[in-house]
């Protein structure tokens, strides 16, 4: 049981490492085949053919942050749903009511954001 568990996760680790190594390997092979003719113009930033203007890192609207925060909060709520769903049948009505209360507290947050116009993306 435990041996199986570790076997599976070692395989997953092998997949992750291979993803990294494989890419480097292909790029290395590519370097052997590909032409190499570095002229400065090739390394300029692309801006539709014009000379790049200003800073690339301009200020962004606050809504990006709000959406990221909504995302984190609802994702945490979602994560709680998973163990509940697995044990749903044996938890029965009690678990169902517990999760309904949990979301009944959390969901008005979304409605509040909606009402305040934070969910508007313009």
């Amino acid at each position, binding site marked *: 049981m435990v041996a199986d568990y570790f076997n599976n996760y070692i395989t997953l680790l092998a997949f992750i490492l291979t993803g990294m190594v494989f890419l480097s390997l292909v790029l290395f092979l*590519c370097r052997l085949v590909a032409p190499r003719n570095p002229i400065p113009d*090739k390394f*300029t*930033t*692309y801006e539709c053919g014009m000379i790049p203007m200003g800073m690339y890192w*301009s200020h962004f609207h606050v809504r990006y942050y709000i959406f990221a925060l909504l995302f984190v909060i609802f994702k945490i709520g979602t994560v709680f749903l998973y163990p509940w769903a697995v044990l*749903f049948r044996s938890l029965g*009505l009690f678990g169902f009511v517990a999760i309904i209360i949990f979301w009944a507290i959390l969901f008005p947050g979304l409605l509040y954001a909606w009402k305040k116009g934070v969910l508007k993306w313009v």
Partner: protein
Amino acid sequence: MSLLQTILVIIIELAAALGFIMVTALILIYMLRKVMGHMQARLGPIRVGPHGVLQTVADALKLFGKEDIIPAAADKWTFRIAPAIVFTASLATFSFIPFAPNIVAVNVDISLFFLLAISSLAVLGIVMAGWGSNNKYALLGGLRGVAQMISYEIPLVLSTLGVVMMTGSLNLIDIVEKQKTMYNIVPQFLGFAIFIVAALAKINRTPFDLPEAESELVAGYNTEYSGMRWAFFFLAEFVNIFIISALGTIVFLGGWNGFLISLPPWAWFMIKSYVLIFFVMWVWSTFPRFRADQLMDVGWKILLPLALLNIALTGLVILLREGRIF
């Protein structure tokens, strides 16, 4: 099993997985061009090989021979690592997909949950690509892409919960085995609909392809990428199309459970996956693109409440049928 055997098995699995995704990507790109071509009253690729079947192979070879360019203004290491993260996230997600009861690389108790967790890592690669390129279009496309992916990830994760409640397990093989008599798409049609819409947005496909809206943002987060580095983004995108179709097949369409004629399990699985892939391509070549604000509206104001409603309804129906209430 001895240590040597274990290592050998892992190496074989890795080689098989890499080979499979390469071939799948080549097939999917060819299929996309053909499907899209015929839907737009064109022929699609036709020159290289019979009916142009070798076109994508030729394209891959061409990309392989391209000069490797890193823009001078780019943040070198971030620029280099970004495609690796996107590709690795796809490959690691792929390892959880069971093709048949005994063809699966990583089979853990919580494979559905872990698959969803690993697939959320692609977001990081897109942030890195957008930021590391040091390019306005790339950054804008990257941040837009992330905003979109995070808005649809919650509905995607929630849409499978109805099935988990019915099955009582997070193991993908268990979920398929429970669908011997009836596919989950019947009782969980709402869940399936939410899954498909959220999945299209998660893999940045039309009508949700805003992060790489060619007409507005050049090419989005991968504007500065070329040659093989770009090819890895492209490869990961097509692997993701396969993964999401395979996941839809497993969770909602009964996986390798066949009907009428008897075929080997993996064949049923592939047929159903390719039906879903065709559906994705059909949508891709049919619909126009959403506006950015409409996109966020659909995710937060429609899909998220609907997904929660689906869970509540599923719970209520199960409890009522088993006589736990009244």
